[in-house]
């Protein structure tokens, strides 16, 4: 026990207890990336539930006026003005796999979430045969995450434990995450900042103690592997698939432990106090989750993040900005200008919080630039006009370091129904993650302003 005898104020106490853990020296990582500046090192996918404040008959708080370099940021995106040169607003994309088809007339919100990063229509089931497709973030994690402690981080704001908040005939699992490691292996999200913090930085102890725990855990995992192998012997081939997934999980955790061990002695301290739980206020909660992402990037503990600013269908109110109607209910604005204006206030609030995060990244030096320079974020929703559950002309913005990337500082308008997966492929390209096709992709977006090509 390294806790000392004195009662200390919380902050000092925590540091003394080692609950705040060191970060690797950032500059040690510089040479590897300094030479290849334009490559994106980190990808983030930030998801807005229940669409944005717009309809198809003249009211649109999202889409900028004008195209190419000559565009006026919309009210919702106004908070991102300081990053105008680093963002690309992209109009015209669609997620057709979320649209209804003959056998799948309902479940719009479910399909929206499940297809956003996969481009695949989720299987209509609540049983063991749940299936979508591998998500873009996981394709990225397979490459970018090879060297980091966590290949990817899955974060959310809402609780997933509520009853009756899912769509009939679809498992709730589809609504609870964006990340699918395989078409049948969803990755759970975490909404408690304290638990995220502990996953990133451990729960204290000395280096020797942590190393000893890692050894202990590795031998336990070896034994668990053997257990699974033994238990599988008696199973038929179809049942073995399930256990194979579990064995894969064991191997992945073993890999993570080794990655932690490789990090070894660490220096420096994150400037965030160990979070204590889930703040009741939306903005405080979101900021804390962004702060954790910032820390994780800074310490290079992960390079891929998905973050859901809420779950589809959620009924949260936002009294702090004067919104007292449930989120999903409000999103069905019925084309009423007053409701659309109120909804725009929420979307603007979300963008302000995102800008707060970008500020932190832009203010953190890394190598010759800042953390933002080597990062690329997809910020948007799986519905445009939520009143109609429309999955066309999606609200999508890319933000990242300028780094000479084409398209920055532009509003690009693509032909309607261009698959969103084409954009996801281009994002993966930017991070040197080579993938031929994704879901319903038909090619790639060149991300160059059409007029200037």
């Amino acid at each position, binding site marked *: *026990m*390294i*806790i000392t*005898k004195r009662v200390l*104020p*919380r902050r000092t*106490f925590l540091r003394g*207890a080692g609950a705040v853990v060191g970060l690797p020296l950032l500059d040690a990582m510089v040479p590897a990336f300094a030479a290849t500046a334009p490559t994106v090192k980190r990808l983030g996918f930030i998801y807005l539930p229940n669409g944005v404040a717009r309809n198809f008959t003249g009211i649109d708080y999202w889409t900028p006026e004008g195209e190419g370099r000559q565009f006026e940021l919309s009210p919702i995106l106004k908070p991102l003005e300081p990053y105008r040169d680093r963002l690309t607003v992209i109009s015209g994309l669609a997620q057709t796999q979320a649209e*209804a088809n003959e*056998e799948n*007339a*309902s479940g719009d919100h479910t399909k929206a979430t499940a297809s956003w990063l996969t481009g695949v229509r989720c299987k209509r089931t*609540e049983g*063991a045969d749940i299936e979508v497709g591998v998500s873009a973030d996981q394709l990225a994690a397979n490459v970018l995450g090879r060297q980091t402690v966590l290949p990817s981080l899955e974060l959310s704001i809402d609780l*997933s*434990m*509520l*009853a*009756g*908040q899912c769509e*009939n005939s679809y*498992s*709730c*699992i589809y609504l609870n995450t964006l990340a699918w*490691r395989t078409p049948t292996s*969803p*990755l*759970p999200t975490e909404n408690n900042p*304290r638990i995220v913090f502990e*996953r990133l930085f451990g729960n*204290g102890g000395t280096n020797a*103690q942590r190393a000893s*725990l890692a050894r*202990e*855990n590795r031998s*336990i995992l070896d*034994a*668990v592997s053997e*257990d699974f192998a033994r*238990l599988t012997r*008696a199973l*038929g081939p*179809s*049942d073995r698939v399930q256990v194979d997934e579990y064995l894969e999980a064991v191997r992945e*955790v073993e890999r*993570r432990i080794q990655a932690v061990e490789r990090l070894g002695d660490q220096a420096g301290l994150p400037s965030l106090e160990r979070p*204590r739980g889930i703040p*009741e206020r939306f903005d405080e909660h979101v900021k804390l989750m962004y702060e954790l992402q910032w820390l994780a990037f800074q310490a290079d503990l992960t390079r891929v993040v998905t973050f859901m600013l809420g779950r589809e269908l959620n*009924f949260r109110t936002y*009294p702090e900005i004067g919104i*007292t*109607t449930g989120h999903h*209910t409000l999103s*069905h*604005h019925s084309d*009423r200008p007053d*409701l659309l204006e109120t909804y725009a206030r929420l979307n603007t609030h979300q963008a302000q919080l995102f800008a707060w995060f970008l500020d932190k990244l832009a203010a953190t030096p890394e190598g010759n630039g800042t953390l933002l320079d080597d990062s690329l974020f997809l910020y948007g929703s799986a519905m445009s006009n939520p009143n*109609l*559950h*429309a999955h066309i002309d999606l609200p999508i913005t890319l933000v990242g370091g300028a780094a000479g990337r084409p398209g920055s500082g532009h509003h690009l308008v693509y032909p309607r129904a261009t698959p969103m997966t084409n954009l996801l492929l281009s994002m993966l390209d930017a991070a040197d993650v080579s993938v031929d096709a994704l879901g319903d992709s038909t090619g790639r977006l060149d991300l160059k302003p059409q007029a200037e090509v």
Partner: protein
Amino acid sequence: MLAVATLVLAACGTSREDLVAEHRTTVSDFCIDCHNDLERTGELTLESRDLSDVAIDAEVWEKVVRKLRAGMMPPPDGPRPGPEQRMAFASWLESELDRAAARAPNPGRTVPFHRLNRNEYRNAVRDLLALEVDVSDLLPADDRSYGFDNIAGVLKLSPTLLERYLDAADKVSRLAVGTASPFAAIDYFHVPDDRSQESRLPGLPFGTRGGIAIDYTFPRDAEYVISAELARNLNEGMPIYAEPQHLEISIDRERVGLFTLEGATPLPRPPLDEPGSSGEIPPPDRLPADEQRLRNRADQDWAVRVPVTAGRHEVTVTFLGRTAALDETARLPFLRPYPRGLNIPEGRKGSYLRSVEISGPFDATGPGDTPSRERVFICRPPADGNDGASESCAASILSRLARRAYRRPVGEADVEALLSFYRLGYEDRGFDAGIQLALKRLLTSPEFLFRIERDPADVAPGSPYRISELELASRLSFFLWSSLPDDDLLRVAEQGRLREPAEIERQVRRMLADPRADAFIDNFAGQWLYLRNLSAVVPVQSLFPDFDDTLRQGLRRETELFFASILREDRSALDLLRADYTYLNERVALHYGNTSIKGSHFRRVALAPDDPRRGLLGHGSILAVTSQPDRTSPVVRGKWILENLLGAPPPSPPANVPPLEATAGATLSMRERLAAHRANPTCAACHELMDPLGFALENFNAVGEWRMLDDSGDAIDASGTLPDGTRFDSVDGLRESLLASELFVTTLAEKLMVYALGRGVEYYDLPAVRKVVREAEADDFRFSSLILGVVNSTPFQMRRSGS
């Protein structure tokens, strides 16, 4: 009722061929117009389906039965058979389907690895180690399907979850054995923002107000630091009160610390018409800036360091109550406190507690005597430290734990696998550390974390077989206790006696009477009735200024106690809808307009025959979880009734059609607004079913208070219709109609089946569901008869082997 219908038909002496022909005519008269191969309305065709062998299209015919029973088909706007003809057809179909199922039972198949969800994990730890853990801290929430979070097919194991299991095993094993942890133990307890702390709270001592009571497991005999933090107002300022505020910290009701926030006199307020004043809301009280700065730090050292023995103790942190005289002058206009961070002046009449932190252990003197250690250490190593004798003690400790944890007899190999970890810890840090490490290993074993069901070697692929008695024992204990079988149940299963009819009934009754069956109420009723959602119900402050956290907890408690009384007194399941009593305390009674109940404890209260609060439909909990934050929603309430009481969930809205909720024309009544929407034929198909049910509950507002006028000031019209056309004009009428319909019990039986099996109910399970209902009917639907029916059913007792 079903039996009667079959008898009538049999008595007529009609041949089977005649009946097939007769029903074939029914189908072609009333169904084929829409459900033919060409139109396939509702993706269904009945053309060329063979009624003489319903087993061929059992899935289709089960759908037909469901629609007929619910009265949803044939639709009201076309030619319809009379109710008798409709029911006769349904009954005949059912008996044919049941006969086919009896000839060739299909018990269905759950996946072989069924992971414990986090509630089950917590209960298993409790029953294995006599240790209560806060599982929401240890493990993530589980995904749900079919309305429940114990569905085998979606309880998967991801790398992240496995990491959490490793971490949880570490913490749990250390707590149970009492070995030191190198890691910081700081636990934080937050008091909900909207819990009023103006008066005494349930579970806290008389003469106190507000605060929190925490059941905390102290890991070792040691010193601990308990600190408290007061709530702030906007900008993190410490609010100003004229009187001093005394905060007391106690352990097991014995005071270990007392802290005082001194009273302060605010600066006089500027007159309202002064510049800078809003003119409407008076600004908050203020102090001179440096005085306020000092005051903001008043609680920074509110911490005590005290020696505590290992084990569970109650930590209470609460304010000393005001005197009655002061209370008179400090009456609050509303029961819900103003939330922190809104730009309104402090509305609280005294300090509120924001959080409590417990950290430690410091200067530990030993593991102490805890129930967990007593449970684990059935022997001790010899004092002389003999390695061999120590190891044989370890072996008996571990083999006993493994039998319970794995729910089966254990062999030498099982014990040896654990002993290899024991030896690692023993050589390093001694006997207790060895046991702790072996226990950590046991808690990460797939045989603990999963319920594993394996096909016997001698069963052909794809055929039904009876599961083993040990597997049956686990199914039973996870159904009724959400936990491991106990020794009694395991022993009987090991002896192969569990399937004896008298024995399985004895076990079920014994288990239902056991306190562990509370888990059934929490998990089954909590999810079936959506009680769990109450924690997320945050009605709009300005509209419901009396709805605070204490009421939220109280409403949930009422329904839990009510459900428990049905279960424990073995009442008819129909009493869930019609009982002439409920459970109230002062706070909930006041919410219901009843001022005669005093005190915070809940008691059984009789309800008059015409009391609208009778049965679940009058419970504030259910009325609140089926409302929007700012108003009632007949749609959501109707959907809840259809799904959970009538078993006829409407499909989700079709694509590109906004839910009816949205066209809120401000001047229309709710009923007019919804009527406008039902004019749209796409919407009407489902909303004509949902809305009329929801209207019956319109006399209850969005938090379940009784009202005569709706939000727009019009008199409530609570009339409506069931899907089969039955009309009613009030909540009483709705209740009577539900009671008269057999759908309620059938739906309950189906939900029980889903929950018991951990998989969705499929068409081939419906004969078993009907059998449960039929047999329970003979016993007036006593709850135990439903449970026993499920336990004795084909899908619970059997399984289909893999293909």
